[in-house]
């Protein structure tokens, strides 16, 4: 089994659009959405069966028992997250370290389980789709990403290409989604922002020692920057997998809940297929 992760650094470059298309093109029987704080893959790649939902418990959070609390203020003084004030803990800012519990002389603080989101596993025959949704404003997104991948691995019975849709940025959820990947495909946008963000995500992926490929989406919206991105890939010795043109058919299909792979032949579909075949080649030549 090969794990192909789609990342971009910058948001909105087309990770999910390409992931959805790849799933159809590979007839993938195992895929996951690791963008847990804004998951979208289910909108175009959901299975017909109902999802098996499970609460996701992140780190425990502190709770103060007002009966026992003597208002000594020690918990507030030792908390480095400014999560305690007026004798109560703000669960949004509590990072669950437990220092307040150790220092409370009245034994009034306890750590309690905290639901930080939910995981959803769709299974239809041998096809599995693992996804999740983080609770609003929650931390623990890296942990939840790891959980999504774990549930995919545990439930898949397939030896093809597992397509994993990643999240924007370069922080903990991204690092968690790259762990164990056979290849990361970066979907770049031809703009100064896209270039800057690509360089940062490539640097992050390089520290994680994973095989990288780059493609450009909507390349014709910024032809000059597309040139610059290709040049950057040559200089860095990164595989360049192709350019996908801007194509209104993509938005049309997406708003109808389908991937572009299911549409009639269109310029973007042809180009995405080409990128996909190149990615497959790299995945299996290793």
């Amino acid at each position, binding site marked *: 089994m090969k794990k192909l992760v789609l990342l971009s650094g910058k948001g909105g470059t087309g990770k999910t659009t390409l992931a959805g298309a790849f799933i159809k093109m590979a007839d993938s029987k195992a895929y996951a959405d690791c963008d847990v704080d804004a998951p979208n893959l289910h909108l175009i790649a959901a299975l017909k069966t109902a999802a098996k939902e499970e609460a996701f418990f992140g780190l425990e959070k502190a709770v103060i028992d007002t009966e026992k609390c003597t208002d000594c203020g020690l918990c507030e003084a030792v908390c*480095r997250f400014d999560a305690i004030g007026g004798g109560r803990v703000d669960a949004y800012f509590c990072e669950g*370290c*437990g220092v307040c519990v150790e220092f409370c002389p009245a034994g009034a603080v306890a750590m309690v389980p905290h639901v930080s989101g939910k995981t959803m596993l769709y299974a239809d025959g041998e096809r599995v789709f693992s996804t999740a949704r983080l609770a609003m404003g929650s931390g623990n*997104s890296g942990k939840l990403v790891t959980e999504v991948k774990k549930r995919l691995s545990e439930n898949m019975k397939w030896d093809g290409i597992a397509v994993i849709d990643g999240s924007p940025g370069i922080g903990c959820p991204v690092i968690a989604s790259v762990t164990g990947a056979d290849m990361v495909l970066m979907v770049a946008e031809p703009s100064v922002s896209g270039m800057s963000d690509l360089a940062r995500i490539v640097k992050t992926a390089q520290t994680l020692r994973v095989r990288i490929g780059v493609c450009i989406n909507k390349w014709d919206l910024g032809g000059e920057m597309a040139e610059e991105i290709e040049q950057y890939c040559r200089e860095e010795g990164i595989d360049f997998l192709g350019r996908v043109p801007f194509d209104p058919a993509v938005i049309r299909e997406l708003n109808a809940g389908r991937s572009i792979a299911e549409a009639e032949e269109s310029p973007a579909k042809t180009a995405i297929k080409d990128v996909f075949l190149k990615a497959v080649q790299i995945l299996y030549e290793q």
Partner: protein
Amino acid sequence: MKIAVLSGKGGAGKTFAAVNLACVALEACYVDCDVEEPNGHLFLKPLNVWTQRVSVMVPVFDVEKCTGCRVCVDFCRYNALALARGKVLHFKEACHSCGGCVLLCPAAAADYSTHEIGMIREGKSGGVRVLTGVLDAGEATGVPIIRELAGRMPKEEICVIDCPPGSACPVMESIKEADYCLLVAEPTAFGVHDLAMALELVRLFEKPAGALLNKCLPGENPARKLCMNTGLDILAEIPFDLETGRMISGGEAAVLKSPFLKAVFLGLLAKIKEEMQK
């Protein structure tokens, strides 16, 4: 007045909106809280930029004093500590800087030290003060940098906060200080799904909010529908336009080139001010 610009989905136009809003305000402060991928400076091109590194607290252990008692290892809920050959090892990637190990060590073998995770840059672009947070590659969280930025925001003038995508803790930190939230929406099923999440977040924090519909296409707009259904005010609409796209691709602040967009953003700013006075 602090205006946070967020969208849930990436690429909806947060930076585009925040940069241009700051530009039409003339005297303003633009704060880039998308510390994982900060881009506003590419459009504002600030001058006289100075840089300050941002560090977090991490423990440092005196191996001579460490008795290998495991108190810190057993306490650490982040699995950032381990014991090897009777001595403690620290993994700074997993550390949340809670300070528990330092406070609890019975042998006083642990002390506070610092670890750099990124930086803050500040410069001036015309009348706009440009504050940018930048997370170092390979670091897990930019939240401490966002907190540092929040501490530097001016109280009086107009302050535009460019938020990260998503709806997790970095976004929450970014909108914490905001007086008003501007939600940028794109007319796709993805954009609407994530706009709903962003709206849920701002309502959870009881922030007044309005929407900017970006990249509007002729015909039905699913983002408009969501605004209608949820009672979210639409403050402005910007059509999808290849020329605007080219300006953004090339790193230009669109209001400086397009009289139409300048009028749109002036109107948007006036509406936000009006909303704030209600």
